[in-house]
């Protein structure tokens, strides 16, 4: 089943611009968006680049990975290692802050971000 989301797809960069199993920051409609190339699983994720803990534009430089039995994909902020789910944007360290996630797709080697 595919969720129908009312978004505009914005072409952002080439897939090869984002390091494998890492992230990079892109400017999308004036906003800083962190894009993650989860090459190990063949998945892509996108979130806000701002870490809500200390308001730093840094998430794209964080390490990605997964946690738990379900292997929930996550990113760790390089500043103080707060981790966030790449699926829901929730903080996984029991703190009440979360981040915005964006739909992302790759077609013909181009990365698109779904912009609402």
């Amino acid at each position, binding site marked *: 089943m595919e969720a129908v989301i009312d978004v505009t797809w914005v072409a952002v960069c080439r897939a090869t611009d984002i390091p494998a199993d890492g992230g990079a920051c892109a400017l999308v409609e004036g906003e800083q968006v962190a894009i993650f190339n989860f090459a190990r699983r063949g998945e892509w994720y996108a979130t806000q680049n701002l870490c809500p803990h*200390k308001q*730093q534009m840094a998430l794209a*430089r*964080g*390490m990605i*990975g*997964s*946690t738990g039995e379900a292997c929930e994909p996550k990113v*760790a902020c390089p500043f103080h290692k707060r981790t966030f789910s790449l699926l829901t944007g929730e903080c996984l360290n*029991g703190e009440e802050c979360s981040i915005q996630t964006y739909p992302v797709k790759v077609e013909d080697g181009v990365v698109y971000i779904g912009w609402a």
Partner: protein
Amino acid sequence: MVLQPLPTVVVIGNGMVGYKFCEKLLAKTQAFKLVVFGEEPRVAYDRVHLCEYFGGKTADDLLLAPLQWYHDNTITLHLGDPVQEIDRANRTVHSRGGLVQPYDYLVLATGSSAFVPDIPGVEKAGVMVYRTIEDLEEIKAYAATAKRGAVLGGGLLGLEAAKALLDLGVPETHVIEFAPRLMPRQIDAAGSQMLQTKLEALGLQIHLSKATSSIGGEDTIDALHFGDGSRLEVDMLVISAGIRPRDELARLAGLEVGLRGGIVVNDEMQTSDPRIFAIGECALHGGMIYGLVAPGYDMAEVVASQLTQGARAFTGYDMSSKLKLIGVDVASFGDPFIAEPHSRSIVFEDAHRGVYKRINISPDGKYLLGGVLIGDAEAYNLLLQTVNNKIVLPPHPEDLILGARGGEATEGAGVLSLPDEALVCSCEAVTKGAICGAVTELGITTVEGMKKCNKAGTGCGGCVPMVKDLIQGTLLAQGAYIKNVLCEHFEYSRQELFDLLKINDIRTYDAALDHFGRGDGCETCKPAIGSILSGLWNDLIVKQNTIQDTNDRYLANIQKGGSYSVVPRIAAGEVTPEQLMVIGRVAQKYGLYTKITGGQRIDLFGAHVSDLPDIWEELINAGFESGHAYGKSLRTVKSCVGSTWCRFGLHDSVSLAIEIENRYKGIRSPHKLKSGVSGCVRECAEAQAKDFGIIATEKGWNLYVCGNGGAKPQHAQLLATDVDKETLVRYLDRFLMFYIKTADPLMRTATWLNKLEGGLAYLKNVVINDSLGICAELEAEMALLIQNYHCEWREVVENPELRRQFTHFVNAPTLKDPSIEFEPVRGQKIVKAW
């Protein structure tokens, strides 16, 4: 249908206890509307750890809960607007800002203020108290220029204030106490004496039996005058002579207060008006003011329970306490003073190590009644539990403070022998039974998990080691095999993985995960495996940069705001005027804040990520290379000028330091490595504070290892004496490689040695006597690492593909991060505060 409005609970005071009351009430019910008035401009913060404000913590770090928490729990919060009047007849409170707030129940958590004795001159500038963050800021401002500071009061808070002055770098700090000894309320005379000796050794000057008669100076303090006619010149004074309950509101409202202050409450914490409660340091219960946080939390629990038809009562509180004063453990528990004929005491005193222990046992030798621990309070939790739970003492109670000598009993077994009702976390009232139950019933296996589960260890944190022991002990008792594992993705210790990856010739993180791990990895195992791979092969880390921490990924140190700092290698601190000019020109061109580091190097701050390769290129062209300030690797080998210039120098410490630094540069280790070489015993390079330090002797060099500055300073220990340079280097190769292979992730050499079974004697045997027969292997492994050294900066500068990754926006490479903002300071720039 008309909804009944919720009954209103008004809390006056947003300190630790006032906050805890809100938290406890919300945990029980949502049936009240909560309104909180606070006098201070901040939300409740952790006053117990206030001194950490000086140790680099920010005011935000100390908050018990962020502002958002109050909002999320629909608490109406009025900060900076103290209540000025309670109108009991109309059941309303009136704030300074003019608010009139009705209440159904009122909770007074107004706390206490510093007691300021009536000494002439106490109003002069430079005289302060130690109570709030604002007080601390004032102290900080004065301490910046003060030459001599004094603290009035040698009690618990006074000594904490003295530590604050030490931390702030006041060159001379005095403690003035009226009583003939320190902390007279908590510890006995012999304990005070030991504490005094230790504190004096740390640089405090202590004056006892001194009555301060007046404070001298025009408008600003310049001296203290004492009753015995003596005087002490000081330029700042912090008064810490006790606390005074804030009962003025209650007094105004006609509530009963004690003769010497404090709002009188019954066992239900009710004041003389049954709708008004008082908790914390403002409450007078059974003639006592409780000046600790744990009883205050207990009082908060009592009121929350009363409001929800519970039956909890407050029946007094154990005032046992354990703290670290200026790095010295001080603890007292039960009745520390009880003496013959009601008790017999066992005393252990070690003037060499500065340890004093006293336990008081019942005359029949069956029960522990109380005691005092100075210098080493590791046994505190167990002793306190032994008192509180009336546990029958073993036949040799002296083992409790001396440890079992020759026996097999371990501390873990001691913790497990406690009864289930033993209170382990007194701040959050969590029993041993609850902690062990969380392990067996809920599968909790970590301290972090326990904190989330039942809050054990979230208050003062003193019980955390015991919680850890209980978790491990319970798991062991269940037959679980406790393994030291990297993280959820690798069921191996770092040392095991080091061997596995070596034997299987694994050279990438992905291969390691495929062979020995599961899942997709995380921020713990990625850099740990990265470190192992570097320790094995010393390949360029830029080849696998997404498994590195951000500093290693960008080969620079990330700083507040997201800019980076750059440190070129200046081996041993030796630099030519030409090189200095190059650094100056680069800093000027890229607008970098420039500062000399503690390791005799120069740090250039505020570089945008996209400028890094250009900065490196200019530095490399002038003969510089990476200083690896960003890596878990050798940072710097500090040196004094040695025999080349110094009239005392025995050997050429600079040349040796340069040689050592160039030998080990760039090699990755479990944590950073620092080193120093001193040309004589005067030790200007501070080699004994380093991971490995070398000091010249008449006959050669002495090698010290496993020293540490940092949060827990530790002197390095002497590994080898009077060795020549070749032997020294050989020992160093072996020592470093042994550490690289066997330490846990992020474990400094000092901790590694502390945990190494057999300690220094064992290490000597391995490194010098080759007791494991691995020295040749260690030397060969080190030789490989040295041979494979490359400057990582150069690799990026010369590789267009890598260089391309140094941009902030992947789709706008020329644009710098607009969110980084700087502000000017003393002719340079710094980043805006977060």
